[in-house]
Each structure stands twice: as structure tokens, then as C-alpha cells.
């Protein structure tokens, strides 16, 4: 059978060229589509990464910093004697065998008892006696109902000072947003040597002072 002779039919040439052109056009379209799909997928990846980064950064920025918290190495131990503390107010140290009952006190409490409560995981919030009554009310409202002591304190280095065992933060006042963060972090926190030990069944403040117990007020 004779092989078909190479066609020189102009119609056939045109058809081949046409089909080649179509193929090129098709390939170009494919390439454009590929680029679009890759671009879209890359955008999705970038978008997800961006949203996550933004959320994390915003979360960090909104968290009040506890950078101002001072950390002290303090001694444990019981003594019935008066103790001279390195910090004002004390942020831990030797203390009375009897702890202070947690609660809200309208007048100053004995250091040696309050320090024992901090050993049990309480946060002790102290304020200058001249703090306006409205601000004292704000502090009362910010107190959890257990493992907290609130009392006025003479000669404070700041309007309000929050203390926990080995930790202390000077606050600008009752509105300082770091108070809530300090309480959340250190009340029954890992720095306390005996968390969960009682903050009741101790003294209402009369121990060693000979004064009439003032007694903790009604906690909110």
C-alpha cells in the first residue's frame, strides 16, 4: 500500500497551524490559571498567618504588665517576737505562729500575723490611710472572698501596695489595672510555700497587740 504522500494541501497546513495556535492559547490559559490558583492559595496562607499573628499580638498588648513586680527571697519560720521586716509592707519573712484570718480590715493589722497568711497563699493589699473612701470601696470590690487581706497601712511607699509571699507591686491607686493581674497570678500562686493552708481559724488581729479584735468585715 503506498504511503500517503506528504500533503501539500494548503487547507491541511492551515488546519495544523490553527490547532497549534489553539494549543498555545490553551497552554497560556492554563498557565494563567495556575498562577491564579497558586496566588490565591498563597494569599490564604498569608491571611491565616496574619490573622493569627495579629490576634496573638493584640492579646499580648492588652495584658497589663507585671514587670514592676519585685521578687524577694524571704525566710520562713515562726517566732512569737516582733519581727523587723526588710520591706514596707512586709513581703514575707519570719512570722507569728498564728495567721491572720483573711478578710477586709478597717484598721492596720499586725505584720507578723499577715505575713503568715501570705505563706498560706493569701495576697495582702495595703493602702495609705488617707486613700479616699471611694477608692477603698473599689479595692473592696476587687477582693476575692478568700485568701485575701485588705488593710490600711501607715507609711506606704505607694498609694496601694499588693504583696504576696516574696512578691510585691507598688500600685498607682485603686484603679491600677495591674491589681487584678497580681491577684490572679499570686493568690494561691506557685510562690506561696503552703498554698491551701488555712486562711481562717487564726486570729482576727488581736494576737500580740492586746487590742480588741477589729475583725474582718463582711467580704463582698
Amino acid at each position, binding site marked *: 500500500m503506498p504511503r500517503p504522500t506528504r500533503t501539500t494541501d494548503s487547507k491541511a497546513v492551515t488546519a495544523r497551524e490553527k490547532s497549534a495556535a489553539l494549543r498555545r492559547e490553551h*497552554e497560556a490559559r*492554563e*498557565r494563567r*490559571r*495556575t498562577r491564579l*490558583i*497558586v496566588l*490565591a*492559595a*498563597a494569599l*490564604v*496562607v498569608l491571611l*491565616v*498567618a496574619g490573622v493569627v499573628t495579629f490576634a496573638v499580638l493584640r492579646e499580648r498588648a492588652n495584658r497589663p504588665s507585671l514587670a514592676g513586680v519585685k521578687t524577694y527571697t524571704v525566710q520562713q519560720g515562726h517566732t512569737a517576737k516582733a519581727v523587723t521586716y526588710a520591706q514596707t509592707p512586709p513581703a514575707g519573712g519570719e512570722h507569728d505562729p498564728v495567721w491572720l484570718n483573711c*478578710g477586709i480590715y478597717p484598721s492596720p493589722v499586725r505584720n507578723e500575723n499577715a505575713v503568715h497568711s501570705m505563706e498560706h*497563699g493569701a495576697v495582702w493589699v495595703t493602702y495609705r490611710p488617707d486613700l479616699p473612701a471611694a477608692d477603698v470601696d473599689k479595692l473592696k470590690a476587687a477582693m*476575692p*472572698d*478568700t485568701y485575701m487581706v485588705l488593710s490600711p497601712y501607715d507609711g506606704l511607699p505607694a498609694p496601694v501596695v499588693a504583696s504576696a509571699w516574696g512578691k510585691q507591686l507598688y500600685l498607682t491607686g485603686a484603679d491600677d489595672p495591674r491589681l*487584678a493581674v497580681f*491577684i*490572679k*497570678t499570686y*493568690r*494561691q*500562686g*506557685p510562690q506561696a510555700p503552703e*498554698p*491551701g493552708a*488555712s486562711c*481562717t*481559724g487564726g486570729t482576727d488581729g488581736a494576737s500580740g497587740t492586746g487590742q480588741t479584735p477589729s*475583725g*474582718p*468585715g*463582711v*467580704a*463582698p
Partner: protein
Amino acid sequence: MTTGRRAAAVALALLAVVGAFLLGGQLLRPATPSDTSAEAGFARDMQTHHNQAVEMALVVREKSTEPVLRSVAYDIATSQSQQSGQMFAWLTMWGLTQTGSGPHMTWMSGSDGGHEGMSGAATGAPAGAGSGMLLPDGRMPGMASSADLARLRSATGRNAEVLFLRLMVVHHRAGVVMARAIEQRTSRPEVLSLARSVVSAQTSEISQMDDLLSARGAAAA
């Protein structure tokens, strides 16, 4: 491979990266309750609740000479401080603080499988908010007030025993409601196990304390 297939493959690979990223975030995140979870809320609130029961039991033990009541008080003080310690340890192991951010009982306002628990309707407070379950002075249900505790501390003899029993029955009832509420909201075995212990122990102690009240000629709480 045609360009179309290649494009699809590249796109699929990129989406797989995204998927892995999202899924990995879920899987790699430690499978423990979050700071605002019902489990964390329960662990914090129930510690506070239990610790007050321990306090009241120790107060009455110093005042009573009656062996059965002293045993009940001893039992409550030791078992509830042990359970309180379990809940403390959960929070530590979950990497959470012992102190929450919101008001007590917020965890009980969430989804509860259709059970109402301590709803606002029961306390006359608006439903939907955790604080709506609290007593007007901010106490959790069942908690004795500062005035109640002061009366208990100053009472003596039979009066102290009766006051203790009444306060503790009310305290236990609310404890059982809280334990039932967490049973509806968790699948964690350690939490379920403790919740069931609380329900069974406190339910039987309530009936025992009711008996002790009637033995003293006092009305039930």
C-alpha cells in the same frame, strides 16, 4: 502532567500546609481545660466552697463533745480538704491559676445539656450570668455568711451543734447542685470521678445530719 493538574497539585499542597497548620494548632495544644472552662471554674469555686465546710467543721469540733457529731465534723474536714487539694492540683497540672478572672459560678451559666442547675429563676436573679446565681451579697449558694460564721464561733454546746448542722446541710445541698452541674459539662474522668464522690458523700451526709438535727429536737434545715 498537564499544567492544570500541576496547578491543582500546588494549590492542594498549599492548602494542606494551611490545614496542617490549623489542625496542628488544635492537636499540639495541650488537651487540658482553658482558663474560662467549666472545669476550671468548678475547680476554683468548689475549693472555696469546700474550704468553708472545713472551717465550719473544725469550729464545731472544738465546741462539741458528742462523739457522732465530732466524727461527722472530722470526716467533713478531712475529706473536703483532701478533695480541695485534688482540685488545686488539677489547676496546677492544667497550667492555670488558682484564681479566676470573673465572678464565681460563671461556669454554671454555660451549656449544660438542658439541665437548669441553679438557675436565676431559683434565686430570683436574672438568668444567663454567672453572677445571677450568686446570693445578693455575692456569696455562692450554700455558703455561710460572715454573720453566720460569727454566730457559730460564739455559740456553745447544743446551739453550736444545731447551727453547724443547719449551715452544713444547706452548704452540702448547694455542693451537690454544683457537682451535678459539672457532671453535665465535662467528660474529663478526674473531674467526673470527684463530682460523683461529692454527690454521693454529701447526699448521704445530708440525711445523716438531718437525723442528728431531729435527735436534738431541732427542725430540719
